[in-house]
């Protein structure tokens, strides 16, 4: 293991059987939406199907990503992080950063798994494929935010359900705020990525002080 902490996290995630089910469900929901809405339902005048899909896709990712991260990660919180820090002689911040980056990588792969369906949707709306790639970049910034927020919630609340609901609500709120306050797509993505990095930095900094010792 050349990068032991991220490698451990990736091995743990890859071994979770629920990961395959979650990815399958996500792809099915994107593909199903594309087929059912895109082919069967009429669109309002002036509204492109791809724009509807984009909103649906963003909302879906904001819910699915925290669920995958919460269910598939190596759920270390509280004293376990202290024990892991002692075992590996690494700071809690290094452990959490490795976790966030690994999960962001996994979530990016999940987004890529749904790319074929979004490409089909772009074709149906007569939009260039380059738009899909820009939206994929946008989803990558969302994956960083979702992983950082989920890890932050995991550290605070060890229960998976609480972590998922809290992380999904936070991710949705940031996504909605970014959509409301920014008009240019690049600024929107930057906003989401910066919030993700800020959350990651905040939880890492906090952990080095708060998770120095086990609870009495």
């Amino acid at each position, binding site marked *: 293991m050349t990068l032991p902490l991220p490698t451990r996290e990736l091995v743990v995630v890859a071994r979770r059987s629920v990961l395959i089910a979650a990815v399958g469900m996500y792809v099915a929901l994107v593909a199903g939406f594309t087929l059912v809405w895109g082919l069967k339902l009429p669109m309002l005048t002036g509204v492109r199907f791809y724009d509807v899909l984009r909103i649906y896709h963003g909302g879906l990712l904001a819910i699915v990503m925290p669920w995958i991260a919460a269910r598939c990660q190596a759920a270390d919180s509280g004293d376990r992080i202290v024990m892991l820090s002692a*075992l590996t002689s690494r700071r809690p911040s290094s452990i959490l950063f490795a976790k966030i980056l690994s999960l962001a990588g996994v979530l990016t792969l999940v987004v890529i798994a749904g790319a074929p369906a979004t490409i089909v949707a772009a074709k149906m709306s007569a939009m260039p494929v380059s738009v899909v790639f820009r939206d994929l970049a946008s989803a990558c910034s969302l994956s960083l935010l979702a992983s950082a927020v989920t890890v932050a919630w995991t550290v605070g609340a060890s229960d998976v359900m609480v972590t998922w609901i809290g992380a999904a609500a936070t991710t949705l709120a940031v996504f909605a705020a970014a959509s409301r306050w920014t008009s240019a797509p690049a600024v929107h993505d930057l906003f989401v990525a910066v919030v993700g990095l800020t959350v990651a930095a905040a939880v890492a900094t906090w952990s080095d002080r708060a998770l120095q010792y086990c609870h*009495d």
Partner: protein
Amino acid sequence: MTAMLRATGLSKRFDATVAFAGVDLQAAPGECVGLVGPNGSGRSTLLKVLATLLRPTSGSIEIDGVDAARAPYEARRRLAHVGDNAVPGHGLTVREYLDFVASARRGQMSRTTIDDTLERAGLRDDADVDKLSAGTRRRLSLAAAFLVAPRILLLDDPFAGLDADARLTFSRWLCEVRDAGTTTIVALNDERDVRALCHRILRLERAASDAGRVTALPATAAV
């Protein structure tokens, strides 16, 4: 004496309950100090405090010249602790777990080194860490601690749950590690183990405090 580990005036209190108090301890490089005493005398807690897992209520700890209160992460690089609360494997196999711990502590290790450790510890490399029995889990923890070759080993009842063969294997292994210069503080229940392994003992006694709770009173003696 050049101390690899020096604890001065160490005490630990959980709310109103005193786990131990007034512990002074020094250990030289390669020295093995046995912690003995009745159940509830605070041996496990003392080891956790020395391992920087628990914050001491008072007193100071110096690990190889590093003040553990000021730089606990720096101190942790120099020691390994084996106790009852092991880190879960989260689905890792025994080999992956050892590889992970060794890589995190010392950088990439050869497959042969891991193989040798697995063989000596009597561990199956593809076994799921989370499904190991308590005794096998203890073997893994000890093997990981020996593999990373720390300067200080803190062992809490290291042979608990081990069968007779494993007990002999790890006892010999520990002697080798000690003779190679690793400072060892080990809490033991069996007096024969103390005599076989330790150069000195620190006896923690239970005594009723004013509030009727338990206080540890340290005393050292040569074995």
